[in-house]
């Protein structure tokens, strides 16, 4: 038992009469069919959301969900059962169902080990965001609305929201490891719609993390988010058609790091590589990027949206070097895929909730800073695209093709940033795109804290980061031929 189990442990034993010794007994019964690994995960989650539109409250909601997931694994097989009614009878039934799958197999013995690292303490808050008074949040949303409108008379509509969450989790594994975590998370989001002579455009901005509500007040963040959303919407009113075809692309710092998430991140998740279905499978030690490129996944950065004290299997998170000076160095692992491939778990086993079995997932994925001056990088481009903000992205991990959509981008003409262009999708090939990185800036920035990643129908909060980089040749999906 670790001290990190104490608060969650008290929570679940007070509320549901489920104690670590009961969990241990249940694991004993799940293990009787000889499995390789097993665990019980308990979760209690409160979500709160406030949305204002046209200055009035459109939505005020509070949701509570709770449940337990029981997992048993033998060889490559996983039995998973979950229930949203945390009671001894239901947990026993879940353990029986999870165990039934492993039972048929005849696995070796309990192979899972306790983690060697200790859990982190990355986001203890004296006032979690779910506790902060609603009236303060509403007041801030009204100020956000006013600030976005004040930015430009063409702003006709503002939608602003604060979403806050607290998750209490406790996990007990077959190896006798019991650990818990209390995870705050909050996000302020602003959408502005600009209208001018029948033309309309939309801009969005936001941020947050595992932080107090006051995070939005410090450094006037709320005002910056509001004016950024408004500025983007107005800017796009005058955007020209994006070019179509292959061109030089310069990505700005911060959120454009979504490139890494799609181009290489998913392809380096342990499950796809164990199954041999990733374009990066079997390529450890090979050169997959320019030597200017070093990429890490780091779940240990204090207060960041993608950070975790322990992952959803109880493994303390870490900093995993994925690519070092262009060489593929590591994959992101959960316990199952680490065990099956003889590697160490990296603290990347994550799940959306108790209703989902864990998968290898990213935390905060970013490229380390280089030496170039960002302005020099732009000046080095004769003709190309400068993209600073993006919407979502997606990847086909098998053929390596990935896309991500620019929401704010400009033409580069003769080394100068010129006209804003309409949103366009950029498409590339994971194992190839990072080989084309020819300049890396010294201005590494992490995103503001808005990322959500989807895989197998499971969404988890993540972070990305990037310095300004130049990519020699990417396909831009515009309409200007």
């Amino acid at each position: 038992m670790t001290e990190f189990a104490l608060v969650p442990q008290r929570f679940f034993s007070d509320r549901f009469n489920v104690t670590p010794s009961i969990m241990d007994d249940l694991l004993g019964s799940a293990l009787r069919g000889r499995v390789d690994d097993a665990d019980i995960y308990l979760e209690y989650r409160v979500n709160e959301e406030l949305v204002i539109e046209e200055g009035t409250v459109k939505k005020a909601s509070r949701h509570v969900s709770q449940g337990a997931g029981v997992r048993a694994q033998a060889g490559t097989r996983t039995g998973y059962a979950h229930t949203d009614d945390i009671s001894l009878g239901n947990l026993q039934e879940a353990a029986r169902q999870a165990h039934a799958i492993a039972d048929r197999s005849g696995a070796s013995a309990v192979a899972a080990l306790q983690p060697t690292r200790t859990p982190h303490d990355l986001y203890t808050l004296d006032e979690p965001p779910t506790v902060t008074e609603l009236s303060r949040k509403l007041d801030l949303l009204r100020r956000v609305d006013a600030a976005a409108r004040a930015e430009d008379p063409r702003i006709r509509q503002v939608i602003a929201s604060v979403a806050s969450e607290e998750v209490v989790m406790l996990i007990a594994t077959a190896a006798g490891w019991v650990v818990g975590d209390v995870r705050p998370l909050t996000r302020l989001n602003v959408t502005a719609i600009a209208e001018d002579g029948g033309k309309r455009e939309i801009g969005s901005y936001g941020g947050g993390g595992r932080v107090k509500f006051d995070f939005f007040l410090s450094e006037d963040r709320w005002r910056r988010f509001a004016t950024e959303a408004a500025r983007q919407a107005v800017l796009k009113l005058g955007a020209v058609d994006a070019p179509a075809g292959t061109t030089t692309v310069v990505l700005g710092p911060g959120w454009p790091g979504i490139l890494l998430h799609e181009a290489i991140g998913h392809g380096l998740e342990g499950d796809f590589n164990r199954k041999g279905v990733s374009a990066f499978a079997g390529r450890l030690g090979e050169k997959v990027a320019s030597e200017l490129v070093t990429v890490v996944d780091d779940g240990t950065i204090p207060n960041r949206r993608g950070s975790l004290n322990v992952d959803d299997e109880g493994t303390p998170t870490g900093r995993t070097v994925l690519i070092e000076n262009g060489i593929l160095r590591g994959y992101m692992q959960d316990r199952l895929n680490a065990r099956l491939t003889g590697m160490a778990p990296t603290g990347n086993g994550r799940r959306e909730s108790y209703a989902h079995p864990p998968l290898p997932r990213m935390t905060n994925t970013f490229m380390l800073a280089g030496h170039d001056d960002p302005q020099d990088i732009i000046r080095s481009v004769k003709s190309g695209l400068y993209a600073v903000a993006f919407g979502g992205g997606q990847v086909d991990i098998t053929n390596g093709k990935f896309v991500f959509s620019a929401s704010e981008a400009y033409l580069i003409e003769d080394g100068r940033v010129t006209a804003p262009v309409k949103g366009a999708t950029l498409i590339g090939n994971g194992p190839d795109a990072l080989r084309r990185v020819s300049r890396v800036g010294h201005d590494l920035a992490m995103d503001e804290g808005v990322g959500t990643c989807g895989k197998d129908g499971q969404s988890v909060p993540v972070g990305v980061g990037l310095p300004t980089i130049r990519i020699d040749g990417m396909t831009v999906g515009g309409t200007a031929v």
Partner: protein
Amino acid sequence: MKTDLLVSVLKRAAERGATAADGFLVEEQRFSATVRLGQVDTVTHAQDQRLSLRVFAGKASAAASTSDLSRESLERVVDEATQLARITGADPHAGLPEPSELIDRVPELDLEDTSADDLTPEAKIEVARKAEAAALESDPRITNSEGAEYFDRRARYAYATSHGFAHGYATTSFGITVSPVARRNGDMQRDSWYSMARKRASLEDPVSIGRTAAARALRRLGARKVKTTEVPVIFDPETAASLLRSVASAVSGPSLYRRASFLLDRLGSRVAAPAITIVDDGLVASALGSRPFDGEGLATRRTVLVNDGVLESYLLDSYSARKLGMVSTHHAARDGSGVTVGTTNLMLLPGSATPSEMIASVRNGLYVTELIGFGVNGVTGDYSRGAVGLWIENGELTYPVEEVTVAGNLLDMLAGVEGVGNDLVLRDRTSAPTLLIGRMVVAGD
């Protein structure tokens, strides 16, 4: 049916000062089995429930929900929601529909199939195994697999309002998905195929699903980029359905009252080629999107959204309808956190051309079989997505294409439809036949 539980929750809300309230309860049981390379991969058993509550304090409202249906928890939810409603401001458009608008009889839509109740997990696993085996055995170039899944889901819904509505219904759904990986030299390609239905007997044969999935992965081997060009583009039924979803989102109430839609102020005018008729029909017996009433207790119906290219209806719940000065089109949907607008069975009605006739009519163009990414701007209609498909030369499908984008503007794309296939099949909640769009920009080298 736990409608009694809902009614007691609504009663407590009234005691706590709510002037009106409604509640929605979902209980579901799910089973899923994934098989990979013939071996069981993951088997999941699940049991979930969620009660969501919306309360009004005059014209102010709030929502709350919980998965804990114990008495103390439900009391807490009611108290929290009524407190929340007190601090939010008044919204003149908030409120339940008029009692007279609610249905009094729940139509029978044949949405439930209990025949899987006696199936053992082993028998279900076997279905997935059979589907995957068919893919693996169909060609030596199918060398790997992301697995095959069988799932079934049973759900019960109950809805009640403070003005006395209390009804429920039950549904089942079944599905099979296969995702094989094809390999030739260094080239690796994955694709998938699926079948979903309310009735187990309506699922496609697992062997044929596996073979289709394999054929889809195989035809992608050797895919390449093409030169950037402007050509006719044919969307297969799966990708054409995604265009329909963009149209539905643009005509849904929240997009319209936020003025965030490329179809704003277009009601009654031509928005697409005359060959385009789009219908939302929630009454199709045993269909995946059917439901007896909407998320506010209003009767499900058949709505013509676009008729011969003319926009005839929006998709509205009662809130967005009041806000727009219109009446609800009975498209309220419940998501975990409240009331939204949603479609039922959304479909583009078929034309008369066969897909091969449509392909034969194109000299040089792209046949799209998969789209990736989120490059659709619902406010302007600007469209730019990653595409996978086959190149059309002289009216025939030739080599596979990847790492390209297709781009245009949805208004131009809808107006530029030059052919609608005769191959509409309701495979999913949103379905379309093959579509031919006269000109789009394909970006590559």
